[in-house]
């Protein structure tokens, strides 16, 4: 089943097209990477999907349901059941790790007992058990990554969008977190849409790869891991 579908989507900024006629279908549970140079429109594509911005032309479907069409948004971001890890992580600095995780659960009206269970489960999955009461500012770069990942996954999203989340890490840590992401994907299962400008990272993470250039899809195909 297609979990996400773009149909001839256009997005303009100041009359200049930033996304040009993109059509793309993404399967349930697949690992898709979007690769392309800086400024080619990767972030914009994710923000369109999340519903922060609306396409001027074209349709976007989630779970075969129309969420945006020709300039109107039909579903608010919070009703789209997506998780997102932002490029700057966007951890709320005034909340503890726990509060960061709990915020969305509360907003979705989930009962305290199941909130508790899901927070504990997520802390375990992301190996952050000891850090529930710590604020993000005190964590290392890798730990912050895990919290951001946990915050997105605790809501059990249909799809997880990641926007160059590892670009600020050193190579060693990057490799480790990549492995953890893949492990989480195997364990709990979700659709992963992963944006990067790094070909090696794309090959590590993705099964299928979309190469973008100037707001268009240049090529789609399987990734070829080195070695």
């Amino acid at each position, binding site marked *: 089943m297609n979990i996400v579908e773009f149909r001839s989507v256009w997005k303009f900024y100041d009359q200049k097209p930033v996304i040009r006629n993109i059509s793309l279908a993404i399967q349930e549970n697949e690992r898709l990477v979007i690769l392309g140079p800086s400024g080619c429109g990767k972030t914009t594509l994710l923000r369109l999907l999340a519903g922060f911005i609306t396409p001027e032309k074209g349709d976007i479907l989630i779970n075969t349901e129309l969420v945006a069409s020709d300039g109107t948004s039909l579903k608010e971001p*919070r009703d789209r059941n997506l998780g997102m890890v932002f490029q700057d992580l*966007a951890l*709320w600095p005034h909340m503890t790790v726990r509060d960061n995780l709990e915020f969305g659960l509360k907003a979705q009206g989930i009962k305290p007992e199941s909130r508790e269970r899901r927070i504990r489960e997520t802390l375990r999955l992301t190996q952050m058990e000891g850090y529930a009461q710590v604020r993000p500012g005190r964590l290392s770069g890798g730990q912050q990554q895990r919290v951001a990942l946990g915050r997105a996954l605790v809501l059990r999203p249909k799809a997880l969008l990641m926007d160059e989340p590892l670009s600020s890490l050193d190579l060693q840590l990057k490799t480790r977190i990549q492995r953890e992401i893949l492990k989480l994907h195997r364990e709990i299962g979700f659709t992963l849409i992963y944006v990067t400008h790094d070909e090696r990272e794309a090959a590590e993470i993705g099964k299928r790869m979309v190469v973008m250039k100037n707001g268009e899809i240049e090529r789609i195909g399987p990734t070829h891991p080195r070695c």
Partner: protein
Amino acid sequence: MTVRLAVLWIAVVILAVAGLVPLLTMFLQSVVVDGQFNLSFYAQIVTSSRQWSLLGNSLILASLTTLGTTLVGLPLGILLGKSDLPLRRTFIFLFTIPLLIPPYVTAVSWFDVLGRNGLLSKSYPSLAATTSSWLFGLPGCVLVLSSTFLPVVMILTITFLKTVNPHLEEAARLSSNWFGVLKGVTVPLARSGIFLASLLVFLLSLGEFGVPMFLRYNVFPVEAFTQFSAFFDYGAAAAAAVPLALITCLVLLLEANFLREKTYQLRPASGAALQIRLGRLRNVVFLTVSLFCIVLVLLPLSALLVQSASQAAYTEAIWRAGDSLLRSLLYAAMGASLLVLLGFATGYLIHSRALGICRSVDTLTVVLFAMPSTVIGIGLISLWNQPSTTFIYATPAIILLGYIAQYTALSSRITVSTLSQIPVSMEEAAEISGAGWLRQVALIIAPLAKRGLAGAWLVCYIFCLRDTGITMMVYPPGRDTLPVRIFSLMANGPPDLIAALCIILILCTLLPLSLLAVVIRLKRQES
């Protein structure tokens, strides 16, 4: 309609009712006599040579004040914002004090230095006679208003210099000394911001009437006030206010068309700002700035203290104006709270561009801020002085509406700059987690913006507390505030009582500010 849009629209409507509608009503009343369209009030003004000379006086005063504050404020802002001068924060604080108190209090304090019974007269009575006649007139007004509005130029210069990209300065440093860099790169890049500061000073000094009234220099706003308070002639007062309103709008229109774009294009600089090393000049510059600060700020304040220094004066002050003092504190606190709420909404609107009219809202707040308080006061009275609206006209509500009309720009602009420092992703992450708008605001944005909002509250509190013009025009009987009470006692009250009241007023302004400074210092030590 979403909650978000509903809240934002309500804020816009409140602002319009508090600020825009009164001005329009006032304008209508000035062109309608006995139900007929009639320009007789304007005819009187245009044909009266006295009015033209008043307008001339106003423009001369405003121009000289602008010139003085810009010539001094720009280098001062550069020194305090970009150099390694010692005690920069202390200097910024001290130079800002005159802006935080009603300008006529500064006039009173200079009177205690240069006047017939002032400090100077104790040792040089004949010299004091000269300085006293010099104080009462144009030079004295320029001195007082310049020291009042110097911080406007100084603070905005510091702010705008920070927006200049340091890489551009670095590139210039490769081939030039600091003077050349400032002259060729930094100041030109911040030019529009500095120009905006000068315009603001021009408009604020054009509208000020407490100082010229006390120092007996006849200007246009005093005329509007007199027409209103002495003769109860609304139409004539309105007609006298309209030219001021027009000048304000015209000047800001020019600013909007020629400068706004450039100001907005400046992005906060990335990377650390470059610092000017004063080197061997450091001591000389430090001495000069200290001396200037002592003469301009500390000397008049000390004179005020000396003049007030008797227990009897303070006892009498509390006895005669204690009720006004309490009302002042109450109204200022209420005004500040309302202003922060409203300013948060309009600031959010301007920052997020959620409604098409966001630019107009921003412009409206700025126009209202620069509008002479006499104009706003007359406008409010024109609108609310009806039998059906005495619940506003005859209660402190009209004072609060006046605060909202004049000072929303402060809380709104502070909110905008605070919000622009919070990454959008913070809000988006909350949104994608399922939070509605109110929850996003209450749990994510407001906590992240809390320092900015607390700052906005304090600034609004201070401006409400120092407000003289609006309150003086609109206060219901028996509901005056301390600045108004002092102003009315000034005509024939004993100087030591006046000085004591002024000191009390200054303390009410500076105490919360010092408290905040202490809290910030403690927090810094903690982390």
